[in-house]
């Protein structure tokens, strides 16, 4: 755990790399793209990896939960969440359909690119 500037903690590099690989594969398989601003992608991947480490599942970091442990068990918001799997809707902007104005043309991101962004926080 590396404390960053505003107290947000990063995940281990190993968890981050696992999450990164999952996201790359899932983007390809679902025909979706990362955000044209890869900093957004980086932040979300860090959050997912951190939740995987702390809670045992990559709970969506773009929701507020009364009880994170209970949410993990219910699985609805574990990435890829139900809205993503059923309708290709990712309000976290990790997986964007081609027609989304924020979609870029990449389905790949490196650990270095992720950390270049998340080291700022």
């Amino acid at each position, binding site marked *: 755990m590396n404390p960053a500037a505003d107290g947000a903690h990063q995940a281990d590099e190993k968890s981050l790399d696992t999450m990164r690989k999952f996201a790359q594969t899932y983007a390809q398989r679902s025909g979706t793209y990362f*955000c044209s601003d890869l900093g*957004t*992608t980086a932040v979300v991947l860090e*959050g997912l990896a951190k939740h995987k480490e702390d809670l045992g599942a990559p709970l969506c*970091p773009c929701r*507020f939960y009364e009880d994170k442990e209970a949410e993990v068990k219910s699985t609805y918001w574990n990435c890829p969440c139900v809205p993503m799997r059923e309708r290709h809707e990712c*309000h*976290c*902007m990790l997986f964007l359909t081609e027609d989304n104005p924020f979609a870029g043309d990449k389905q790949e991101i490196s650990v270095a690119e992720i950390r270049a962004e998340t080291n700022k926080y």
Partner: protein
Amino acid sequence: MAEGSKLVLDVTDDTFKEKVIDCDVPVLVDFWAPWCGPCRMVGPVVAEIAEQYEGQIQVFKVNTDENPQVASQYGIRSIPTLMIFKGGQRVDMVVGAVPKTTLATTLEKYLSA
């Protein structure tokens, strides 16, 4: 979210009543969380709004991880959620990363009346 604007101050579970509910002017509150991608996009928009409407409104941000009481009280689900308060009441909200014009239009409704 993390990028600081002097006009967008942190509010907490403890200070929410004093800073938001008891405020004499309309208040915009940005409910955010660490490692939330769209929060990172909406942060600068909120900062621009705070500058544009300086003197007319107050703008605060709430880290929902650190302030679960107020997040829970207002039924926050999707993050970011931007809420507008007037006279101690929640009067409107916008969910997700929205363009500045959308936020400005929503806010304008509560400035004149």
